[in-house]
């Protein structure tokens, strides 16, 4: 029988795969995909907790998080286009200008 821990473990794995993608990759697009994977993992946690604790409200929060993810990817991609216009590159190391 599927328990709450099954879903929590699964979303944990998804979250860390996303976090690893953000930390290890240098392509801006893949970093954005990693952020989205992490958001999805949190959604999965919310829905599974809501299901196993008997609260329907979790689904409403998941809906809100989806809208926030949409806003985030919208602004993120606009920033990527902006950066590409300046440096003609999607490598994240080219934008470490504040570090120098």
């Amino acid at each position, binding site marked *: *029988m*599927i328990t*709450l821990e*099954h*879903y929590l*473990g*699964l979303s*944990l*794995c*998804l979250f*860390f*795969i*996303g*976090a*690893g*993608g953000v*930390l*290890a990759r*240098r*392509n801006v*697009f*893949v970093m*954005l*995909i*990693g952020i*989205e*994977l992490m958001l*999805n993992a949190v*959604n*999965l946690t919310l*829905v*599974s*907790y809501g*299901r*196993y*604790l*008997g609260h*329907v*409200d979790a*689904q*409403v929060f*998941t809906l*809100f998080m*989806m*809208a*926030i*993810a*949409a806003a*985030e*990817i*919208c*602004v993120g*991609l*606009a920033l*990527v*286009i902006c950066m*590409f216009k300046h440096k003609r*590159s*999607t490598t994240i*190391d080219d934008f470490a200008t504040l570090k120098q």
Partner: protein
Amino acid sequence: MSELILFWCLAVLMIGSAITAVVLRNPINCAMGFIVTLAAVAGLFWLLDSRVISVLQVLIYAGAIVTLLVVVIMLLNVPDEKLPQENHVLYWVGGLLILAFCIQAITFPAGVSPDKADILTYEQASMTTTNATPQVAIQHLPRDQRIQREREVFGTMRQISGRIFGTPTTGAEEHAAPRFGPYMLAFEILSILLLVAAVGAVILTKRNL
């Protein structure tokens, strides 16, 4: 039993495609892997009896967000030799760290967790949420109730389409009000957030204002 098999199939698909989405070199391939991950998560939502969220996952994520991502990737069209040189040592370090974190989190659970008594079993959860939402746990009901419930669900769809095409109906509000009623303000603020994001994206990418 069939649910367990489905769960493991979706889990393997989700983890595999998520790894694909993160390690492949070309971002367009990563986006394709990302779509498969989203579809698998939508399947898990369906398995968790939240079918509205499952449908919205496909509509919003796979429909809107990934489309936007793919369009921008193809718009910028970075040639293969100009893709960033990835540091493969980092992959191994990251992979090992992820593994360590997962093992740590599974074996030493955090202090904040709900009481064991509060967590429902699969069947209990089906029974509780059935009263709250019209579209959950159909498969656990007896046959006549299941038919009744499916009628309700599809009846709701018919009522929504009836609202658009002019048949006098009620019903959509009754289902939506207990869910969204307490969160009306948050819902409205969210629409402002989306508007601000859209305007911000246009301002950021416009050549000269």
